[in-house]
Every structure is written in structure tokens, then in C-alpha cells.
């Protein structure tokens, strides 16, 4: 187990470098001179000099990359062109809103998705199954921003139960979290159902019946336990959603998260901010994947003994 942990931990390093190269290239892929992209309207010649120096635009690309990497590792991601504040500061300001929303949403979607999957699989081909799968299908297909607007309309305007928007209080987290969670829950419910039915058809399940175990014990202790393995895999693959998937929902609920920061930076072509936000998202995804791998190994003893 420790060996596995260590191997995965070390694996994060090359992935991080690959991603940093991709993100670094971003500013150079965009059509036009990177300098144009770094310049806002009405910038002075002196500022241009400063930018050239700061981003080492007069040096060859590999040198630029290494300088950028070095700065980045020291916590310096440059400054926003528009807001004139260090990118690190901006990111740290917006991160908590995304993190709280993302973590709540993923927890919600896991609980809701798995319970819907259990009901569906346990009551296969009954009205409950069809109902749960219908809800799951809607969850997957409804665009999150529209659902968010409808939720605002119903719960904040017509029923007046919850605040329309905002970010400070716990109650302002409920609507956006449920909105984001519903899509994930639909996916998880479908995966859980398929996985449970697959496990339920395995030979060892018949043997558990032969041991005299009750249906409930078999379903929860064995079928579900085995079915969670693919569910965790899917969760791990989609862990990027924790930080970045809620862009539209953040906008609908005026939540100042990373998504909103990224969108406004995209619109204003504020490249240092785009690079910084992307880097943070990438790190979040790498870390999330690592955590999911650990969880996966915890859930499946066969994975722990893999030797590559």
C-alpha cells in the first residue's frame, strides 16, 4: 500500500510538468504577438518594456519557460493586466468559493447518485427503477445554468425560501450546490446501476446466497461494495469538476469563484490570469486524480498489488 502511495505521488511530478508546458504554450498559440495579448488598451511604451522584461519576451522560448516555471514555483504568477494585482492574490481570493461549492456538490452528487443507483438496481425494471433513471437522465441532460435559473425562480423568487445569490452564508451555498450536484448525480446513478447489476450477476453472489446471507446484506455489503469501484473511477476522472465545472452556475448565482474569474479574464484577454487560473485548475485536477487513485486502491485490493 505504501509503495503504491509513493509511486502515485511521484507520478504527479511529470504530469505537472507536461501540463505546465501546455499552459505556458497557451499564450503563444493564440494568434498574434504575445505582447499584444499582454497589452491592454492605452498602455505606455514604458509598460511595454516592463512586460518584455517581466516575461522575458526577448529570450528564446525554452528560457522563457524556465523563467516562468521558476517564478511560478516561487509563487509569482505575474500580475493581472486589467486589475493590476498579483495573480496569486486573485486566485487565493476566488479559490475558497469554488472549493466550497465544488466539494459540497461532489459530496451531494455522490450520496444522491449512489442511492438512486441502489434503488434502481435493487428494484430493476420496476416503476422505481424507471423513475430513478428518468431523473438521472434529466440530471445529465439539463444544462446546469438553466436549472440554476429555474431554481432561483422557484425557491428564491416564488417561494422566497433561499437567497437569490451571494456567497457568504451557508444558505447561499444550497441552491448552487444542488444545481451542480444534479448533473453529477445523474452520471453516478447510471454508473452505479450498471455496475451493481453487473456485480449481481457474478458467481460469487450466488455463493453468498448459498451461505445463507440475506438479500439486504448481500446487496449492501457485497454488491454495492464491489460496484463502488467503477463509481470511484468515474468520480476520479471527473474530479476536475470540483474546481472548474461550475463556471456557468457560478455566474448564474453571482458567486465569485475561479470559474467566474477565468471567464472574465477570457473576455478581457487577461492572459496572466488565464494562465494562473488554468494552472491552479490543473493542479487541482492532478491532486484530485491522486486522491481518487488512493480511494480506488482502498476500495479494490487488487489495485494495491499492481506492480507497474
Amino acid at each position, binding site marked *: 500500500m505504501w509503495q503504491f502511495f509513493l509511486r502515485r505521488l511521484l507520478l504527479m511530478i511529470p504530469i505537472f510538468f507536461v501540463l505546465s508546458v501546455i499552459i505556458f504554450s497557451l499564450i503563444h498559440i493564440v494568434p498574434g504577438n504575445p505582447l499584444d495579448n499582454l497589452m491592454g488598451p492605452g498602455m505606455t511604451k514604458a509598460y511595454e518594456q516592463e512586460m518584455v522584461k517581466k516575461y522575458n519576451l526577448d529570450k528564446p522560448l525554452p528560457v522563457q519557460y524556465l523563467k516562468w516555471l521558476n517564478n511560478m514555483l516561487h509563487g509569482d504568477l505575474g500580475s493581472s493586466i486589467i486589475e493590476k494585482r498579483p495573480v496569486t492574490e486573485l486566485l487565493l481570493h476566488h479559490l475558497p468559493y469554488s472549493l466550497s461549492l465544488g466539494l459540497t456538490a461532489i459530496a451531494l452528487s455522490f450520496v444522491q447518485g449512489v442511492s438512486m443507483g441502489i434503488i434502481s438496481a435493487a428494484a430493476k425494471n420496476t416503476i422505481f427503477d424507471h423513475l430513478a433513471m428518468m431523473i438521472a437522465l434529466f440530471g445529465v441532460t439539463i444544462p446546469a445554468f438553466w436549472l440554476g435559473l429555474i431554481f432561483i425562480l422557484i425557491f428564491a423568487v416564488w417561494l422566497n425560501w433561499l437567497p437569490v445569490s451571494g456567497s457568504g452564508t451557508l444558505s447561499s451555498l444550497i441552491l448552487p450546490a444542488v444545481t451542480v450536484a444534479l448533473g453529477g448525480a445523474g452520471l453516478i446513478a447510471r454508473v452505479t446501476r450498471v455496475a451493481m447489476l453487473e456485480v449481481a450477476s457474478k458467481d460469487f453472489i450466488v455463493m453468498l446466497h448459498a*451461505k*445463507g*446471507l440475506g438479500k439486504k446484506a448481500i446487496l449492501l455489503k457485497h454488491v454495492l461494495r464491489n460496484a463502488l469501484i467503477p463509481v470511484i473511477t468515474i468520480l476520479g476522472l471527473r474530479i476536475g469538476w470540483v474546481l472548474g465545472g461550475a463556471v456557468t452556475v457560478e455566474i448564474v448565482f453571482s458567486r465569485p469563484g475561479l470559474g467566474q474569474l477565468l471567464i472574465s479574464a477570457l473576455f478581457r484577454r487577461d492572459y496572466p490570469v488565464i494562465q494562473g487560473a488554468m494552472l491552479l485548475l490543473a493542479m487541482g485536477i492532478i491532486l484530485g486524480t491522486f486522491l481518487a487513485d488512493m480511494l480506488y486502491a482502498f476500495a479494490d485490493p487488487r489495485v494495491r498489488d499492481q506492480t507497474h
Partner: protein
Amino acid sequence: MSLLVVDNVSVEFKTRDGIVEPLSGISFKIDAGEILGLVGETGSGKSVTAQAIMGLLPFLNGRVSSGRICFRDQDLLAISEDQYQKIRGNHISLISQNPMTSLDPVYKVGDQIVEGLRQHVVIARDDAVKRAVNVMTSLGIPNSEKVFFQYPHQLSGGLKQRIVIAMGLCADPHLLIADEPTTALDVTVQAQIVELFRKTVAQRNIGLIMITHDLGVISNLCDTVVVMYAGHVVEKGRVQEVFANPMHPYTRALLKCIPKFGMPERSLKAIQGNVPSVSTFPGGCRYHLRCPDMKPICMTEAPQTLQAGNGIEVQCHQFGPNWREEL
């Protein structure tokens, strides 16, 4: 009172292509202290018989469509699922056919033995662990205490097979059904396990149904033998009688397939053809396509079960009243 009576039992399965009947009107019984061998090729319905007795068919899209299964005078087909759960793994244990797929991959094998035990017996966990380790050791598992804490994928096929056997023996069953329990083991271990079965049956005075296609095991271990072919019992009787004087052409053919020490290699016989699959069981006698003694009546009429003088029951037209008049 017989321990178990299987009386004229037929089994149906629902499949994508309709209903199939892998078991048609089979009967046999077994007493306490008796070892019964159930023999036949793959597809003859041996495992389905075990599933029917264990009440596992509902979980496999199947059901007993007619007949009676009585365990210690209790009609198993009439009791509720809850009552059945108290019998399964407790009074009747099944040792499954395929050890590779019979264990839950995510739990330690020891815990899986203890799980079944504690389902039926009120016993502290520590005591249950001790008991499980003892049974494991008695089955010739080296380092039982260590193996107890390992996962199925970490064990060899032979070890897994013995874990599955331990699961069956750990509770105190009155009837043990062992579905080809020795296939994955090498010969020396096989002999060991067979010996252990013999001892267990004698000590605990329980019944054992040994499902196998290994006639060596049958002649070694069993008191009675039931020969199955394509969902029918074609012959049954005391092992000595059947082996000394096999009546059904299929039994005779089977016995010719056993290699004997010192016999020239070429005289080893194989039965021509294969067991038909369940959807292609032929009409008449189901063996007629492969039978060397086939006559027209075999194609059209299913043979009745006939009592032979030496306690053997056989299902073959040869021993019927009209055989000589046939062409």
C-alpha cells in the same frame, strides 16, 4: 427417515430464447452418513441439481417446475425465503464448482469464512476466527493464520479451492453438497481432501452429495452413485453393484473411459459425440444419438425407470418388456 429426498424434480430456466428445462423428473435420496456420487458429463444437470436443493434457482432466473424436495421431512419448496436462509449454509452447505469466481474479490478470505459461520452460529468473533483457522489447517492450508488475512487474488487456485471447501465445512451442516471440489487441486492434495470428506461424514454422521465427473473419486469414496445424462437420471444404485455390472449403455461407456494401470493406451475409449445442449435435447431417449444399441423405439419413446434385481434403477428400453420384438 431419509435425510434428503429428491422426488421427480424438473427445473426450468428463463433465457432470452425462451424457457429451457435442464432437469426433467429426476429422483434420488440420501441418508445420514451416506456419500452419494452424482456423475455425468458437463451439461448433464449435476450443478443445476445442487442449485435446486440449495434453493438458489430464483436468483438464477430458474425454478423447480414440478416435483418435491424434502429435507428431514420438511418440504423445501413450500418454505419461505427467510426460512430457507436459515437452512442454507447452516443445515445444507454447498461447496461451489469454480473457486476462481466463488469468492468476493474485495474481502479477506478469512472474513468470508467467518461471515458465513457467524450468520448461523452465535459465536464471538475471536472464536469464529480460531475455528476458521482450524478448519483451514485441517484442509492442508499452510500458514493458515497468514492466509486468513489474504485476499482471493493473492492465492493460488488450489488454495482458493480449499478456502471454498472451508466455507462449506465451517458451519455444522447435516448435508454437504460438493460440486466438483477437487478439480483445481493436484493429485496428492485431491487424495487428502477426499480422505477429509470421508472422515467428516463418518465423524459428524452427515450426508454428502459428491458431484464429479471423476469415476475414480466415486468408486473410492461413494456408497451410492447416480448417473445423469442430459437432465435425466439414467442409472442409480450401490456403487459396487453399478461398477461391477453397469446396465445403461451410457454408464458402460463412462466406465470404459477410466484408464486402468497397465492397460495399453489404445484400448482407452472415448464416448462419441457430445452431451446435447439444453435447447437441443432430442426426443425419445436422450442418449439415442450416441447409443451403440439404439433401436427405433429409442427415437420415439422416452424410457421408463425400471427396477433391476440388484437394487439398481435404470432408464433404458433395453431392459423393458418389448426390447426383443424391436428391430
